[in-house]
């Protein structure tokens, strides 16, 4: 009897040892595909937020990323009244320039961008393998995509959401993302229906985000705040080091 139990334990250990690393490796590939280590990336983001009451607002921003140093700068192009308003992220820290107070606010990168469901942290590539551990994995069909669904739990407090569920298509790109609070409440659902390949890496072409905390009921249906992000004209032009500094935010501000 003892030998049977020992054998079963041995089989379980062997199975888990072989099963998990494959998924961890897969997660690393998911991260690698959207991370630009050897170059800067810049692109134009058009962010349209539509409130449940039907009103909408549009923000156009230029984004500059240097993933090798975990830095990015986002500068607002439109609306014109906000032109030059900027965000600088260095590691987990975020700097905002306050043109009225002529100073900088130092805050966390979990903030909403221009009051939309898009978070400032969403401008970066992903690091699921480094920031989360796998709770469960299953296969699921998502429209035309055959997906592996990962249930992930954060191993660090620096992430925006402590629990996430991601749908990864066969080409190792995240197609759908659900963000949960610690208590398990669904906070946001994001769709990445299409990507664009730049050199050897990928950037989403469109992101659709549904905010589950902002909604209204229409009859027996629920309508959520929805943010659509279009990412255009990705560029790999090298940027100067001085771009990723607080001084640059102050310099380009127009107030």
């Amino acid at each position: 009897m003892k030998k049977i139990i020992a054998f079963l334990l041995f089989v379980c250990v062997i199975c888990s040892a072989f099963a998990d690393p494959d998924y961890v490796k897969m997660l690393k590939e998911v991260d690698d595909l959207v991370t630009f280590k050897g170059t800067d990336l810049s692109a134009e983001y058009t962010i349209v937020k539509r409130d449940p009451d039907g009103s909408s607002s549009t923000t156009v921003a230029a984004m500059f990323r240097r993933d090798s140093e975990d830095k990015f700068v986002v500068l607002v192009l439109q609306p014109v009244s906000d032109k030059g308003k900027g965000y600088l992220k260095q590691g987990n820290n975020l700097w905002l320039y306050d043109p009225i107070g002529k100073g900088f606010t130092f805050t966390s990168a979990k903030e909403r961008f221009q009051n939309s469901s898009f978070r400032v942290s969403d401008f970066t590539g992903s690091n699921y393998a480094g920031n989360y551990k796998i709770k469960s994995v299953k296969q699921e069909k998502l429209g035309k995509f055959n997906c592996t669904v990962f249930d992930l739990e954060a191993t660090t407090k620096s992430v925006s959401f402590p629990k996430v569920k991601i749908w990864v298509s066969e080409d190792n790109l995240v197609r759908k993302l659900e963000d949960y609070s610690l208590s398990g409440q669904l906070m946001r659902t994001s769709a990445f229906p299409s990507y664009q390949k730049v050199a050897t890496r990928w950037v989403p072409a469109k992101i659709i985000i549904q905010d589950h905390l902002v909604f209204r009921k229409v009859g027996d249906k629920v309508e959520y705040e929805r943010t659509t992000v279009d990412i255009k004209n990705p560029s790999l032009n090298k940027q100067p080091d001085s771009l990723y500094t607080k001084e640059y935010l102050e310099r380009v501000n127009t107030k």
Partner: protein
Amino acid sequence: MQFEKKRLTFFVFLSLILFCQLICLPEAVLAAEFEISRDNEDLEAEDTPYEDDFDSIFDDPAEDIVVEQPADIDYRNQFEESKKIVVSGDFVIRAGGGFGWTDEPFDGYPEKVAGAYSKATISFDARPDPTIRIFGKLKTEMDSDNGSDVWSRLDFDELYCDYNWLDKSFFRLGKFYMTWGQGRLFRPANFMEDCEDGTSFRMTMPNVLDGVTLVSLYKRYPGSPNDGKLHKGDVSLAGHADKTLGPINFSAAMLYNQMDGQRYSGSVKTVILGTDLFADYVLNRSDEGDITHEALAGFYHEWENIKFYGEYYYDGRIEDDVDHCVGLATDFDNLFGSPVGMGFKWLHSVTDNAGQFIGGFSISPWKHVKIRMAIPWQYGDKELDKDFYEEFPINSKLAFTLFVELSAGF
């Protein structure tokens, strides 16, 4: 006297009308919003995907594409260069009145005051190429509370030239504002407070540490003769350095003036659970060698429409009058999605048991129009905020004020 009476009657009448509107407005505003919602319901029901069909996005999505030639676009040009001079400005006119008591106890007949204030600014921003920028802001104002009923002389509020040397150093020369230190309510480490009244030369090296700044400030020292010559104390030299290590931002600064001596500061700042936590320490060394200390600790948290912050300040500049102060402030904007805002600011000297409190409420019933109500209250003899009465045409210990403000920018 007759004119004063008429003016008072006019503003009391205006205040009454505003007050009546204020009572009626929330209903009117809510009614308007309700109508919009109803109008949209039919439209939205047809074209908005709901939770159930969110996944339909993936039924027939656009194909992934390969970008053969990444765009040769430098987005920086859109911020650093402009073929045209950008001109902008704003205009504010504020009128209203109030009543208050100049002495405690507040049981006598209150003093009534009415007045108006106007301000206009115009700015120009020229960026002929990425290395250079010229910015200027002109300001004029008319303040009937200070006895002025004509516009002040149009004067430069800011005027400076920026030069970017090979993306390694930035130079700024002219009249401009700078803020150092972490405090919002108390600002012991803001060594650059005076730079708005002088002419400064600033050199910043953004890639050294996380930014190193050197400043030379020229401002005529109080009491020095205006004979066109440079006098002792007219020039101050200052430096500031920043470095972020992990989740903590460290900064250090110093200021030297031949008359006032030296000032040194060290600051730390971090973010815990979305809240900024910070501390400043300041050491002042006078020209005679006397050393005094100041310290500040505080927090700042910002939700979507709410700002909340508090600070503790130790002021040891006067040996026999060491003070401990606390401050708390909050600002609610667009309360519950309505055009209503409110806030308060409270500064208190623990040692002198004196302080200042201001509670305010505002509503923006129409575009460009804001109605503000405020209750400024000063207790004890210590004035902690020198700008406390700036917005109020009444120099009372306790006052009730109501203003209507029209503002527009372009």
